[in-house]
């Protein structure tokens, strides 16, 4: 059961510099349980860096990071390994291990934990079924298309049923139908499994879809896709806009359209 009173992720005044260059400057935001924060901004504004900070792959120069209320800022690598079990990460190009098959990639975490092979196969099969790639279980990453690699990446992130998933531009470089499939998978996790997430993208079309459509279950328990209308307004998806390492906007899509900032307007023009 989710504790709704504790933020899934909380970043407070995060500052990060590299070689005297400011990457992130006093960045603060929180992701509530079951919420998706869409993190937007141009290339090099620090979007992927935020995800790496949440995972503890890099440490901030200043500020605090909390996951499920636990301050992980000063955690050792060993302590972070425990925290990372609660988090799934979908990397930009999938970041699949080239020398391992799809089965070994998806089940990687379980193999490392020394789980029984039959249990691993069942878990992997379930996750691949969710991303509609059950038939690719014995393929090697080199045999997969770009979209398939991302979906395998999502399946790998879902192993262990993490309550928190970080997406690092999962739709970058994909054709629109495949990008839409990826977004719908993220929406299904958000709406039907209450997974909290940060979704990094610079494609306004994806962001628009995720903030205006949702999944629900029909009478037969099957997931169905619906669009936001006059009777329902999605509140579990919010936007954060980064510019030069600073948060310049934080709020819902409705308020985003009304912002007069030329930088933000440049993004909105895409839709």
């Amino acid at each position: 059961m989710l504790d709704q009173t504790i933020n899934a992720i909380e970043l407070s005044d995060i500052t990060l510099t590299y070689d005297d260059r400011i990457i992130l400057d006093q960045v603060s935001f929180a992701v509530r349980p079951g919420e998706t924060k869409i993190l937007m901004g141009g290339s090099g504004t620090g979007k992927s860096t935020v995800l790496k900070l949440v995972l503890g792959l890099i440490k901030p120069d200043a500020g605090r990071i909390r996951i499920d209320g636990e301050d992980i800022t000063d955690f050792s690598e060993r302590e972070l390994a425990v925290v990372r079990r609660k988090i799934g990460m979908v990397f930009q190009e999938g970041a699949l291990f080239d020398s391992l098959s799809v089965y070994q990639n998806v089940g990687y975490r379980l193999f490392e934990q020394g789980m029984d092979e039959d249990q691993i196969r069942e878990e992997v099969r379930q996750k691949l079924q969710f991303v509609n790639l059950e038939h690719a279980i014995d393929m090697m990453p080199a045999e997969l298309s770009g979209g398939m690699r991302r979906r395998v990446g999502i399946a790998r992130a879902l192993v262990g049923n993490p309550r928190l998933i970080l997406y690092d531009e999962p739709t970058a470089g994909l054709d629109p139908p495949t990008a839409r499939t990826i977004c719908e998978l993220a929406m299904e996790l958000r709406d039907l499994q209450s997974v909290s997430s940060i979704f990094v993208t610079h494609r306004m079309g994806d962001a628009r879809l995720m903030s205006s459509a949702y999944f629900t279950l029909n009478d037969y328990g099957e997931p169905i896709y619906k669009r936001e209308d006059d009777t329902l307004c999605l509140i579990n998806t919010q936007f954060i806009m980064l510019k030069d390492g600073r948060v310049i906007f934080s709020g819902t899509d409705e308020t985003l359209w009304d912002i007069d900032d030329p930088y933000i307007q440049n993004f909105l023009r895409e839709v």
Partner: protein
Amino acid sequence: MNPLTRALLEVQEAALMTGRAFRGTFSRPYYFREVIVQMDLIGYGSMAIIILTGAFTGAVLALQSSSALMTFGAQSKTGQLVMTSLVRELGPVLASLMLAGRVGSGIAAEIGSMVVSEQVDAMRALGTDPLRKLVFPRIVTLLLMCPILTLVADMIGSFGGWVVATSLMHVASSVYISSAKVALTYNDIIGGMIKPAVFGFIIAVVGCRAGLRTYGGTVGVGRSTTQAVVMSDILILASDFFLSKIILAFS
């Protein structure tokens, strides 16, 4: 940052990397399977190149030394010269240089590619310490396999020297073998095994470190690979001098 500070920082990073990789030997998960896989890839995989290196080194040593010794009427000492040169210096150094070219570059390229394609980050995100999974098995493998491969190079080299000495330089087989036997002392053999262990350690640490600090896409992978080979070669040749000095002092 000036070059000296950068070099010291690099030594510090390499030492920390090695320390953290070896700390993994005392707690779970263990990566013995990775060690076996690397031994097969690095050890068995390098056998052909080592055999060829050893054979031609021994052959050319016999050819050159026999001609030179003939001038002094000491051609019977060919076996002694070939064995001493091979076991003390040329075997360890040439085998290690070949391994730096084949294995060190491979390690840097493989880990570097994993870094730029975010596979190392993915590994960490999935709860695995890349130093234990990637670095530790490679260091252990080269520590063990480099002396073994050097031993193979020495044996093949002495055989190559025997073939050339007996067939081309007309040295009697028994003369070559007895002079080769007399030449070697235990100190030579021990020193000839310590050196490649140190060189193997250098190749692994330099290769892994070059791979892990890769940045800048495929160009970065190429740069790391070159750096790994150049740095390993320089360190092998420089440390060979100091190791020879230490081993000679002890003998």
